[in-house]
């Protein structure tokens, strides 16, 4: 696959154009919050987890930093580089905690420039995903499925969270696995976990797949050591423990369960993961099986917990690779995707729907959210629960099919 090849270049240009249409005109408050927090790197703040609680009273945005440290350092460094292009009012915009921030002149420039790293990683993800497969026809399908599926465009550029960083690193890990470069594959997962913890879910599969004991040890060391090195300097900071370790995936997976008495609880997410890992232990894993098992682990998590819409980016590379080889899964994934995306759409949070248009005009904030619309006729929480139950059922079936196909 060469970029000079006009076919690839043509679709990259088209993909970039489509993304450019979305980038400046859709807004989720998260991008402003974490960009505000990352802006402290230019002021020499190294431990954002202690800085924010200590200066809470004097800061316009009071939120804590909930991501792992690499997010802070990567976004902070990018802001330092991009500062000359962002203009003099950028810091005022970041610090503006009022609703009027979405209506400030320059907001389109800020959103466009802040989302540029996502665009680069998004295109690189397509290139490396295509490099994972051998056959040219399948390669082209993978390339197109990643670049032109509407799910990833909307998740990356409308909801604009940092998930593309670990997603790209997970894809790189798959690429290096394909090349039998085990230490690099492990390292990419470790670095990915430096942004968000979920790539650590794939480490056991990589460990099992590595052919020799030396490779297995390399996978463990290169994935876990960088992750530990990234978090260790902040581990004793209460802000890190409270905001990062106690938020998101790390605690949601143990947020619900079945009590078996004497204070013990069975956690369904962990039960399902244990089954998947044990199944992997008894299989001979190749690249195809690895993709299936990684996807099964992600679906198991989503089926069991309350998830953010941005997390739905995690399974897309695996789905793309599976669909490029076998289109018969298409409708299963479309149904699963629609169910998954409609659950967060029903959260009582305008930032999930109508408020994303607030930079076009703040009037959109006055529109009722799907939650409020449903509330007029039915309990939206029950509808959400029904959708999540359907997703659970469809997800469990999908896991069974994925792992059953491997066996066959």
């Amino acid at each position, binding site marked *: 696959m060469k970029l000079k090849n006009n076919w690839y270049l043509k679709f990259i240009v088209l993909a970039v154009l*489509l993304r450019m249409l*979305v980038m400046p005109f859709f807004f989720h408050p998260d991008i402003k919050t974490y960009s505000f927090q990352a802006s402290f790197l230019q002021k020499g703040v190294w431990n954002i987890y202690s800085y924010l609680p200590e200066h809470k009273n004097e800061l316009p945005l009071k939120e804590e930093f909930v991501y792992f440290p690499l997010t802070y350092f990567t976004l902070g460094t990018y802001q330092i580089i991009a500062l000359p292009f962002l203009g003099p009012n950028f810091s005022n915009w970041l610090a503006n905690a009022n609703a009027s921030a979405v209506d400030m002149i320059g907001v*389109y420039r800020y959103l466009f420039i802040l989302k540029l790293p996502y665009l680069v990683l998004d295109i690189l993800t397509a290139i490396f995903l295509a490099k994972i497969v051998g056959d040219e026809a399948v390669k082209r399908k993978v390339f*197109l*499925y990643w670049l032109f*599926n*509407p799910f990833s465009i909307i998740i990356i550029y409308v909801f604009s969270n940092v998930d593309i960083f670990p997603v790209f690193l997970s894809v790189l890990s798959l690429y290096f696995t394909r090349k039998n470069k085990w230490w690099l594959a492990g390292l990419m997962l470790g670095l990915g976990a430096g942004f968000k913890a979920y790539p650590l879910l794939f480490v056991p599969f990589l460990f099992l797949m590595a052919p020799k004991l030396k490779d297995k040890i390399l996978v463990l060391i290169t994935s876990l050591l960088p992750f530990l090195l990234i978090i260790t300097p902040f581990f004793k900071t209460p802000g890190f423990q409270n905001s990062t370790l106690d938020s998101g995936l790390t605690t949601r997976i143990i947020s619900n369960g079945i009590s078996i008495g004497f204070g013990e609880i069975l956690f369904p997410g962990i039960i399902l993961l244990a089954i998947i890992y044990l199944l992997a232990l008894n299989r001979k894993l190749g690249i195809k099986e690895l993709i299936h098992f990684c996807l099964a682990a992600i679906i198991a998590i989503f089926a069991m917990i309350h998830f953010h819409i941005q997390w739905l980016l995690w399974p897309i590379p695996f789905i793309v690779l599976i669909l490029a080889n076998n289109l018969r899964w298409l409708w299963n994934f479309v149904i699963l995707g629609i169910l998954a995306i409609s659950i967060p759409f029903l959260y009582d949070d305008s930032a999930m729907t*109508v408020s994303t248009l607030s930079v076009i*005009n703040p009037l959109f904030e006055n529109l009722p959210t799907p939650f409020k619309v449903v509330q007029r006729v039915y309990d939206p929480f029950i509808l959400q629960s029904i959708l999540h139950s359907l997703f659970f059922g469809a997800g469990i079936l999908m896991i069974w099919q994925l792992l059953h196909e491997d066996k066959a």
Partner: protein
Amino acid sequence: MKLVYFTKVLILCLVVLIPGVLAIGIRKLPSGFQPPLSDSQMIYGIETVSQSFIAQKNQLSGFALTIKNPNSINKKDLVMNLMDESGQIVRTVTVNGWSIPDGGYINFSFASIPDSAGKKFIAQFSAPTAIDTDSLELYHSNKPFDGTYKVNGQTENGSLSFITYYAPQNFFANEILIYRNWMWKFFMDWQFAIIYLTLLVGGSAFLIISKIKAHNRFAKTFLAGRGFKHED
């Protein structure tokens, strides 16, 4: 290729059409942004809190403010009487404490007043059945405001932190407003607008040229296959 076409259409709709379609659903246009909140005024029993203001447009249809309901304990009626300059009640809206979350932004919506522009109105609040232990509190703002704020008929400093709402003048009013403001805000940052449009036009030109070249290449191959010699 169907996927590429589908996504192209979807993204174009998302960016160009969806804002216009959703704009139809906006039935209330705010007068501006809510002033920053400062402290709050308790309201219960015979106490009244009133705020005068001049309506900016016709079709006045709502008065919204932020209300404190500590621990959501209040389950009683909060009444807003909207009076004209002569003190005549023109609209009355009652909201129950059940539907007021603590710190909730509550819009007292009423049937729009067609000829409201430039006229003075007074929004008077009372909670006759509430007592001091379950009272609601209306948020103030320290931001200067041209209107009189009264508690139990006595003029006080500051104002309520509120926004007035207006119904759209006609069906297309929102559409025009949305697209006009969008373009205005985009072109106000003209440096970005030029670079952004140049990139879009440049990328589109590249795609068009690629398509023409591919078409010519195909034509050459096709003609050559049928024994025709292509002359440039």
